[in-house]
């Protein structure tokens, strides 16, 4: 595996120069002839009965082409539990409920038309606290389920219950036990590009749908189901990606605005674009869900973990998107972070009249890790053990099978912890309680795909043109993370071409093979594995061609030289050096005999072979192309929430040094070290980019970010009041790449998209405790909370 030419190199992202020069076609720039602009009218109430909707005035506004309400479109349910309709016509259950929509010739006219729609509501009592909503006599957010059967409770019928070993017995036998509660807020994904799509039907009602989804085949499937349910059966659907400005979880589900866009396109027979304003992005796009955890952990007198018991309550909001499935990933740290034999976990998702939630980078792991990693420090303190040492005692080892059934393959967690200890000067700085302190936290995450659908596969097609250009049709998507560069490096390595030869087309259901989606930190791993396999097939085909064509080319050249110069004596060449593809190698565009890499006659530029192979002239010409569909050998979670759902797992540790201003409660991060197990870094610069970006989002999660929802309404729906960190908040982050190539990874690589943000917030909370002796278990850790805690302690 050594002597890699392209993997492991900091290949620049030249394919993306269009982005920085403004030429890239994002959804904003994507235009179709005659295209209209759609806008959505949202509810005025968190819970109300719609008494009437009058769209007459809006319809008369010049430039308006369509105004639709729930009465104008089939009453079809959508979403993962089918608990909502596209436009709501009887009851609104949250402020972002879509009540009507307009298509007009400009976005401004569409916006004006919304103001002319008159909706009369009868307010209903609303419920915003999930604890209240769980009570038996609580008012119901939904009277019936998707099939019209009456519901008796706001608790969702989801099976999030896990048990391994005997927690009660283990608690009895534990020397030290700690128990505490944590809460985490809603977090907006803050993509640079806001949501949007363009829907366009042809005369046969076939749909071309340009969308930012990072699950193009999943989206196609959901839209097909929707079209079928509204009476458009058997229509062809092509899903295309524009250039996407970030996903971070938002492009996983098909959102309501997308169905609205499709309805407006159907109604107007024109292409229709919907693009969110930033305010809509905050108020009408599902965020990472808010959660409450109660966590109890115990250890024996040597500091070995004995049990872990976690109960989570997730505010589901009024409807259900992927947020409700994040317990499947919360399972990761809860069951498998450190060696813990007895585990119990239960997550309850509760309907409220709040905004509903979906995926965000980490998919439940950041919330659960905050619970687990703060509990680790509490327990370490109770047991009188240094928190770093406590983590080392309990660390995972290669070859472990965790209570959840995860098979740990490579695991350099020990190195991650020790690296952080050393770089943050742990032993020197810890335990001073002088306003400065250090803290750490670790993580485990899927890093070898994640079998959340029955297939976790991905397909890749490669064709090589006669000039030696390598066209790749990927079934995956790129949302800006650098996959065109990373996949090009992998393909260049596997095929023997150069990264700059590789041209990748992402995000088109008409061209690519099926893919489960660019999510779960899976793209480099899964698409990379498909790329290596397809690349090897391509290389084999070329070498087979070379066996036929090198002798031909060499002999022809010798003949020509003889013709030119009658005195030329052709050399005696050993053609057995190249009589089998196994005896040839292709690297850096050159084909040569393995036995004589610098052979003056046989070493041939690959383009010559491709041209020669294509232009045979006797009905035997050959084009080079290959495709591979690769599905990792993993398991779905079973009914007990057990199963090895990823090929491999990534570990990592974040260490933070903070300074706390005891008079203002402000926390300043002096240093953050984030050491991550990445298997092998295909492109170290891009890996570090992932770690830096994730660490920043993790710091925001720890200290500043929250979607503030007051009585169901988002009150900070802009970047002034939503405190994501800026370029000015230049926190010194040191990203450390720990390499331990994983046998299952492409050239040993593991996924690194999500891990960076997971341990950051708990590391900060732990460092604050070390600095000033107060525990803030409620994110974000605002100066108010720190100061209030200090005051309560009499400091």
């Amino acid at each position, binding site marked *: 595996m050594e002597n890699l030419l392209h993997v492991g190199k900091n290949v620049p992202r030249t394919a993306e120069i269009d982005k920085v020069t403004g030429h890239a076609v994002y959804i904003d720039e994507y235009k179709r002839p005659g295209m209209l602009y759609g806008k959505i009218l949202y509810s005025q109430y968190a819970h109300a009965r719609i008494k009437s909707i009058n769209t007459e005035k809006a319809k008369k506004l010049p430039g308006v082409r369509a105004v639709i309400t729930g009465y104008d479109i089939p009453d079809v349910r959508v979403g993962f539990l089918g608990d909502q309709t596209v436009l709501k016509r009887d009851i609104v259950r949250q402020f972002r409920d879509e009540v009507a929509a307009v298509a007009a010739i400009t976005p401004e006219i569409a916006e004006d038309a919304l103001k002319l729609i008159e909706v009369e509501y009868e307010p209903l009592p609303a419920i915003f606290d999930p604890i209240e909503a769980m009570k038996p006599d609580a008012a119901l957010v939904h009277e019936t389920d998707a099939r019209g059967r009456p519901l008796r409770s706001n608790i969702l019928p989801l099976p999030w219950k896990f048990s391994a070993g005997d927690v009660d017995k283990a608690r009895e036998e534990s020397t030290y036990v700690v128990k505490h509660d944590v809460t985490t807020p809603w977090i907006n994904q803050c993509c640079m590009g806001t949501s949007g799509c363009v829907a366009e039907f042809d005369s046969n009602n076939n749909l071309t749908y340009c969308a930012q989804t990072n699950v193009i085949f999943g989206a196609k499937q959901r839209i097909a189901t929707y079209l079928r349910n509204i009476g458009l059966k058997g229509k062809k659907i092509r899903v295309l990606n524009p250039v996407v400005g970030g996903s971070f979880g938002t492009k996983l589900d098909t959102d309501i605005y997308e169905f609205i866009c499709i309805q407006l396109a159907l109604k107007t027979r024109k292409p229709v674009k919907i693009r969110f304003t930033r305010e809509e992005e905050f108020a009408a796009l599902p965020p990472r869900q808010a959660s409450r955890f109660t966590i109890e952990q115990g250890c024996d007198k040597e500091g070995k973990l004995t049990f872990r018991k976690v109960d989570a309550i997730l505010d589901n909001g009024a409807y259900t998107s992927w947020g409700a499935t994040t317990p499947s990933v919360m399972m990761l740290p809860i069951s498998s972070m450190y060696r813990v034999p007895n585990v119990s976990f239960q997550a309850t998702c509760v309907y409220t009249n709040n905004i509903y939630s979906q995926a965000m980078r980490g998919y439940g792991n950041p919330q659960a890790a905050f619970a687990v990693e703060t509990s680790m420090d509490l327990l370490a303190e109770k047991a009188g053990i240094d928190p770093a040492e406590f983590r080392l005692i309990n660390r995972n080892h290669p070859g472990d099978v965790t209570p959840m059934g995860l098979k740990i393959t490579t695991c350099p967690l020990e190195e991650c912890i020790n690296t952080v200890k050393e770089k943050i000067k742990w032993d020197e700085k810890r335990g001073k309680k002088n306003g400065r302190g250090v803290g750490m936290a670790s993580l485990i995450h899927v890093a070898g795909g994640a079998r959340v659908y029955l297939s976790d596969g991905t397909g890749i097609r490669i064709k090589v043109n006669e000039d030696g250009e390598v066209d790749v049709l990927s079934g995956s998507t790129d949302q800006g993370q650098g996959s065109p560069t990373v996949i090009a490096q992998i393909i260049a390595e596997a095929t023997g071409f150069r990264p700059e030869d590789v041209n990748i087309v992402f995000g088109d259901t008409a061209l690519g093979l099926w893919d489960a989606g660019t999510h779960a930190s899976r793209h480099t791993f899964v698409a990379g594995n498909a790329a290596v396999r397809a690349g090897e097939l391509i290389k084999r085909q070329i070498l087979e061609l070379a066996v036929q064509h090198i002798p031909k080319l060499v002999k022809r050249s010798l003949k020509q030289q003889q013709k030119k110069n009658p005195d030329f004596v052709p050399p005696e060449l050993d053609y057995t050096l190249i009589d089998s593809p196994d005896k040839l190698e292709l690297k850096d565009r050159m084909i040569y005999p393995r036995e004589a890499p610098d052979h003056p006659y046989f070493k041939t530029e690959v383009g010559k072979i491709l041209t020669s192979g294509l232009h045979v002239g006797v009905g035997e010409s050959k084009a080079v192309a290959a495709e591979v569909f690769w599905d990792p050998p993993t398991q779905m979670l079973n009914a007990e929430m057990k199963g090895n759902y990823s090929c491999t797992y990534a570990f990592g540790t974040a260490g933070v040094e903070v300074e706390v201003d005891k*008079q203002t409660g402000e926390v300043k991060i002096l240093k953050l070290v984030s050491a991550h197990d990445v298997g092998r870094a295909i492109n170290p610069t891009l890996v570090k980019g992932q770690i830096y970006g994730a660490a920043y989002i993790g710091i925001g999660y720890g200290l500043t970010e929250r979607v503030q929802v007051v009585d169901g309404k988002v009150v900070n729906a802009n970047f002034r009041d939503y405190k994501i960190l800026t370029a*000015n*908040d230049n926190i010194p982050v040191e990203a450390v790449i720990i390499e331990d190539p994983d046998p299952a990874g492409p050239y040993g690589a593991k996924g690194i998209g999500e891990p960076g943000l997971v341990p950051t917030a708990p590391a900060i909370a732990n460092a604050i405790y070390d600095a000033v002796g107060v525990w803030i278990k409620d994110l974000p850790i605002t100066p108010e909370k720190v100061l209030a805690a200090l005051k309560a302690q009499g400091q």
Partner: protein
Amino acid sequence: MKAYDYHKPHTVKEAIDIMGGLENAKYIAGGTDVMVLLRQGKINPANLVSLRNVAEISRIDTQNGIRIGAGVTHTQIANNEFIREHYSALADGAGVVGSKQIRNVATIGGNICNAAPSADTACPLLVLDAEAVIAGKSGERQVPVDDFIVGPSQVALEKGELVTGFVIPAFGDRTGSAYIKHARRLAMDLPILGIAVRATVKIGGAQAACRDAFKLTDVSDIVKRLEAEGLVLEDVRVAMSVVAPRPVRARKAEEAAKGKTISEKVLEELGEIAASESKPRDSFRGEAWYRRDMVKVLTKRALLKSIERMTGASSMVAPSRLW
């Protein structure tokens, strides 16, 4: 956002004339507030009268104190050596508005005329006894900034009138000032609280000893040293933002500090009284109790910062150095 006509006068007179002849018109300078309001649909002017090309309001004149044109940008103010040295609080305030990109175009005239309760240059101008220079059809008049700012988005301008600049007196070399913005991040943020202080002091002992006091790391040691050197607070100004509908002076605190020799007790009182004069409210941006607490803390810090600067210990050290 609606269409509007855009006018580009080159002189103050021309601007006032154009404005006089228009209905539903608004001045625009840097545009960093006007464009936001336009986009949000909170204002819908048919005409915008741009002050970008009016050269006479874009100057800084340093004779007899200072006169800063209303069209001077925050970046120009924050980078101006004379302002940094003699009117440090204003350089502090101008240097923390919005972001670098915003400071490069946003003007001080705009920051004051927008009259946000959180305006970062308002408190500095209040403690520096600044007056707004107002031009109108009938000539020029000067109004103390304290009277000029009336309430949220309200200033004492008659129709057609235009702020052309701000005049600030000279304070001599026994005066220092500072502004501290308390916000959650370092750019694109409104203050949860802003505090400006100006202090004119008299030193019984040696100025050099006072300067050296700031080499100490413990704040109470610094104050004790200053006290030992007989540092008297001759004249103090305190202004606070976001604790009332408009930035306000803490006059009782100012009065109480006057003539006192510095001590931890005096500092404590100054903070307490200023806090008692603040009327912060709970909002989703910050809690009242916390803002009131921060008035206490930051008033003390801004006062010490002012003294530190006066002694020449350092002209622009980040406030966090001391704590």
